[in-house]
């Protein structure tokens, strides 16, 4: 009788925001195309550690399992990524899972990313329209500009880029690459650009774009391949221009 092939997980757990982290190890039955979320689901069905100790199911966040909702971001073998799109065949074992500690931990692998949504308020991440009723027909757009907007608009607020950025953390107020680059998205829009100055001024404040150290880590980890550093550089130029303009208009 051949032994069933298993996948070895070492999971960093934490019972509550203030309690001490600890690790537990699990063996999950292998199957082709197994991804990390599916493996965590197996642990839910049988919450028993590698040593046969009964435990509680691991807590994590997930929704779509298609790499579009951004919920299941965690640190897998040291790298921030979406758990659903991480196939166990593609990474070495044992597989180490940890919460993205750039954010406060709620429990186990679940983290609190509300700061990212707050930052979207700060950069005024919306197009100011008069109302949802009929007003005007929207302006025609250059299809190439629209394609750039489409690329940036894939950002799912997962937080990989914040986790990877050396300037996001307790030592700095930097709001991080994702929310910053969203300002560029709305500045591209033919109606959104009416508020371009507001957004650029918001990025001049503490925690804005001057806190970006250009380490280029963000672009490496973005699961949506958004050219974050390109847009950060362009925004930086726009902010500098705006700063000069502000001086001369004083």
């Amino acid at each position: 009788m051949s032994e069933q092939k298993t996948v070895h997980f070492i999971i960093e757990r934490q019972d509550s925001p203030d309690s001490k982290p600890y690790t537990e190890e699990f063996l999950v039955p292998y199957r082709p195309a197994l991804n990390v979320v599916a493996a965590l689901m197996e642990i839910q069905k049988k919450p028993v550690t590698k040593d046969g100790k009964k435990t509680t199911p691991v807590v994590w966040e997930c929704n779509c399992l298609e790499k579009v909702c951004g919920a299941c971001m965690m640190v897998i073998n040291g790298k921030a990524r979406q758990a659903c799109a991480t196939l166990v065949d593609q990474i070495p074992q044992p597989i180490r899972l940890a919460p993205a500690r750039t954010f406060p931990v709620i429990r186990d692998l679940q983290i609190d990313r509300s700061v990212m949504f707050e930052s979207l308020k700060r950069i005024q991440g919306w197009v100011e329209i008069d109302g949802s009723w009929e007003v005007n027909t929207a302006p025609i757009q250059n299809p190439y500009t629209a394609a750039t907007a489409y690329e940036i608009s894939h950002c799912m607020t997962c937080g990989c880029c914040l986790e990877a950025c050396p300037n996001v953390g307790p030592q700095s107020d930097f709001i991080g690459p994702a929310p910053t680059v969203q300002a560029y998205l709305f500045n591209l829009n033919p109606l959104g650009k009416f508020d371009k100055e507001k957004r650029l001024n918001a990025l001049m404040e503490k925690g804005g774009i001057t806190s970006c150290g250009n380490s280029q880590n963000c672009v490496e980890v973005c699961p949506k391949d958004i050219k974050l550093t390109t847009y950060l550089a362009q925004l930086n130029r726009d902010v500098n221009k705006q700063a000069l303009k502000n001086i001369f208009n004083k």
Partner: protein
Amino acid sequence: MSKKNIIVVGGGLSGLMAAIKICEAGGELKLFSYCPVKRSHSLCAQGGINACMNTKGQNDTTWEHFDDTVYGGDFLADQTAVKGMCETAPKLIKMFDRMGVPFTRTAEGVLDLRNFGGQKNKRTVFAGSTTGQQLLYALDEQVRKWEVKGKVKKYEFWEFIKIIKNDKNVCRGIVAQNMNSMEIEAFSADAVILATGGPGVIFGRCTASTICNGSAVSAVYQQGAEIGNSEFIQIHPTAIPGSDKNRLMSEACRGEGGRVWTYKDGKPWYFLETMYPAYGNLVPRDIAARAIYDVCVNQGLGINGENRVYLDLSHIPAEYLERKLGGILEMYSEFVGDDPRKVPMQIYPSVHYSMGGIWVDTKHNTNIPALLASGECDYQYHGANRLGANSLLSAAYSGTISGPEAIRWSESDEIGDELTDVQLAAAKQACVDDFESIISMNGIENAHELHHELGDLMNKYCTIVRVNKELDYCMDELKKILARWNDIGVSDKGHWANQEAMFVRQLRNMILYAMVICKAARMRDESRGAHYKPEFPDRNDEKFLKTTIASYNTETHEPEISYRDFDHSLIKPRPRRYDVAKGGK
């Protein structure tokens, strides 16, 4: 003067659209969601949103969109409601365009349109292959603006448990639970909108997100809300089978020229093109799903004898594919490992969408006063089968109706008295007691294993082909699963982010909803749209041109099924065929 205090449960496309309308009308709202609303399931919609933009020189009309939708739904949809939706669609697209949705554009800079199933004209507006994501983000952004203005208070990571009615039986509040602190609270409101999405997770593996469990719908059903047409479950013909979930491969693949085939006598057989020459690969979903099932299961012609067929894009130039379908091709490569630009994809049908849901009138009122429902959780617009790219439309459109209607309730005398502190406290205490008894469950069943069994059962008996004898068996098994629910053991006894205990509560709701689907399927002895019974292969308008209504029997815990007339006054039912052109006008 009343504050117009509304509760919206669910932050997908419909809930957010309703939220915007409520704010614009001067209302204030509390928005409850399992997750940050930006992560709601609407974002999984890929292919597009239907609207008669008529920019392709095809003389498309809103009437044609209306007729396609009614015909595609096998004449079971309320026609006045559908007509309103199709007429409003182009205006909604203009609104989304103004909000900054990065729609795919033509060389001239206007919104591009693509083909979709069951429609002869190009009518589907799209943003690459992530249209739902882009539409959801636009509404999320607009709601964030209202949040900054103090009109929206979000309760994200809160689970809806049940509604609270006042002495006049009017819905005047809800009980919900904070998913981290586990604290349970009662909230009062003038009216409540449920926009909680579909029940796909009842089937275990499906194309839905893990949050689409139908639990909220089941909860209000147990409190007296009627469910309509629950037997009509859409099986999407082209999904990537997976052990954790089936991942959707958009109908846009076929809309952009993708062909479905398998080998027969050693040669590629494009069976949809052979069987349905008039529509070919662009037949509606129920038709395509049944054809694939027939080819694989009855004829044994699946790839290598397995339940798979090819969905082939490899004949289309890579640059074109990248522009029109980029996101999903990348998803296929990532989860399967093959490049669909070079080799045909392998797909099989999967549970995808529920045409049925909470019964509502054309203003999205349920049968419980001041409780409204909109989006996939309601039963409106799609009849017996939904056309692709009509779901984003119905989600957004229904929010534009339910939001203002909730405001109307808030200004009406009919809602009676606000909930008293005593009523709020009693409702809360009942939920606290239920939750504590779940936490203390010490039986032998694992809730996730039991859910797995539920999914297998529903997938086997309540999907593409339905047989009465098997449905009877399925119902018996569901009763056993319900009984076994009482014997669940909860391993996590804690009161902090206890996902296991919350899942146990959801699971019971899922089982009761599964019974509604199964029983309604058992009772409808005909074949119509997604509901197919070989024993009754024809549509029977004389007996079943009616809405199925399910009500909860509090004693037996089972649904009672009845039938209700609906409005089909505008287009006379005619035979639905896709091998020849549709006819009618």
